């Protein structure tokens, strides 16, 4: 199973290679942001530069997608005092210079070079801190982490400038080439995120019967939460088949359905009938 990943880049030149690699097509009609997607669960939005744009683009993309479990990845160029131009950096600490807020992206064991990053409002020219510098990551991370678990939000930067090659000399036309040189690292990261978001969807997705039962009867908010829990317990106890049967039966109302489910779960639990009973 392939999970879903949202890519966020600031500039069209940062998007170019990603669009090609993942065979993304532009979403029409164009909305507030240029957005691309494929049928395999990868979407990309071009946010424009700066924290505010990153926040809004994440929000916008989230708003146009159906509910689901998606990972988020910000890919882009960054400055660094000493790292070589073209070096890929998996960001493990983000400091928002203006607010002082700190964020801590996860650190998967993918053999990628880790680095801290400072998000600034203006391009960094003095490179005073031993960290990467960008203009979006803090906004991106704060916003995306509010939509999912922080364990599904990553930032990957490619060094475009350093003390020897200052930011005002960066040739933006070279950006696609910088990405191209890191294709395998970026693909690895995206694959990893797809696995993670698929795992989350697998752990926390609801069985289809839940939706069909919801359509069949009227549930209060409390009963709806209880129904979700009952459906999950049926599955956890290896009784998916029984849940499907129940979903086909006509009950008088939500209350009688819930009573039947409750009784069935109680008797399964009492007899120790779990999915793996007797397997060991």
């Amino acid at each position, binding site marked *: 199973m392939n999970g879903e990943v949202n890519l966020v880049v600031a500039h069209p030149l940062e998007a170019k290679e990603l669009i090609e690699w993942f065979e993304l097509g532009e979403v029409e009609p164009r909305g507030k942001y240029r957005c691309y997607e494929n049928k395999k669960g990868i979407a990309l939005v071009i946010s424009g530069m700066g924290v505010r744009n990153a926040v809004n683009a994440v929000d916008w993309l989230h708003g146009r997608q159906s509910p689901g479990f998606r990972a988020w990845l910000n890919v882009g160029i960054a400055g660094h005092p000493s790292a070589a131009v073209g070096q890929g950096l998996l960001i*493990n600490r983000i400091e928002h210079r203006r607010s002082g807020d700190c964020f801590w992206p996860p650190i998967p064991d993918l053999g990628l070079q880790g680095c801290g990053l400072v998000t600034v409002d203006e391009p960094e020219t003095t490179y005073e801190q031993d960290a990467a510098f960008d203009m979006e990551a803090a906004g991106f991370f704060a916003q995306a982490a509010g939509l999912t*678990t922080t364990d599904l939000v990553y930032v990957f930067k490619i060094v475009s400038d350093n003390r020897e090659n200052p930011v005002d000399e960066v040739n933006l036309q070279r950006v696609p080439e910088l990405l191209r040189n890191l294709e395998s690292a970026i693909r690895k990261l995206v694959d990893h995120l797809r696995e993670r978001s698929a795992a*989350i969807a697998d752990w926390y997705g609801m069985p289809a019967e839940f939706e069909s039962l919801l359509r069949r009867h009227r549930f209060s908010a409390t009963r709806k939460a209880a129904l979700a*829990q009952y459906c999950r317990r049926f599955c*956890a*106890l290896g009784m998916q088949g029984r849940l499907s049967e129940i979903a086909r039966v006509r009950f008088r109302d939500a209350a009688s359905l819930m009573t039947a489910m409750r009784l069935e779960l109680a008797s399964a*639990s009492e007899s120790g009938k779990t*999915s793996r*009973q007797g397997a060991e």
Partner: protein
Amino acid sequence: MFSAVYFESEVRDHPRTRAILERYRELPHIECERFGQIFNRKAQNFRMQKQYPALILARKHGRKVLPAPAGYGFEAGQSHYFSHMLNCIYDCRYCFLQGMYRSAHCVLFVNFEDFADSILQSIAAGSGTQVFYSGYDCDSLALEPVSNFAEFFVPFFAQHPRAVLELRTKSTQISGLLQMAPAPNCIVAMSFTTEACAKRWERDVPSIEKRLKALARLQEAGWPVAIRFEPLLPEADQKAYASLFDLIFRRLDAGRVHSTSTGLFRMPADYFRNTLKLYPDEPLFARETRTENGIVSLEQPNREAWLAELEEMLFRHIDPASYYRCAN
């Protein structure tokens, strides 16, 4: 074992921090102000983090020694616990830590000396024997090669015979202990569930056979050892427990076992709710439960009779005077 090492700025130059960073020099080292910035963040997924936990090195502030909950441990005077670590490198599905903490990263407090001072104060303030449990929020020995926790605390306790230390563990990291002279007031308490339960619910934990071997070696070397049958899970039948008891007491000198205890699966209700959210697909938590006084346990018909029968089997091996039921 770890994906990265975070360390608080405050402990950057602490010798234990330096040694651990050197040991993990190939991992990313990330500085933070307070461990809570990482450990207590909202919206973390403990289950996912268990796949790539990090180590966080920090200084423990505030109270370091706390009264042990009533019913926890053996009766030998006033009981306390102290946590030099939060979380565990193992992954037992029934563990309450996964419901207690937002993060699966392991926090190691490096200021052992401050813990020792607090323990001394507790000893001085109390009368008679004082018991100290170190495995309440972690496994006492699992990270020994990194933390050198026992290497520091066992000699410390050995100098204070009025205090008893229980090192509760499922680990086989005993080589450090075997190099020391046994301390009569330092008890290594090993936890066991049945073979089937261990296979099903204890990930990354040494096998029963390995644990038993470690315990037997400790006992042979003169260390007081104890057995903890926790948690008792209704999933296992009496026969499984009978063979576990046989296996253990064939290998150990039962007469020299410091104490044996049992404890049913139980979890504070809010931790259970969190755990259930993390593992909605786990059959163990999908069973019927009962909540009493804020504690969730698994519903089990004739629970008391079941437990009494287990105890009867146990008493064929041990002196009932050395047995207790853990209630907390």
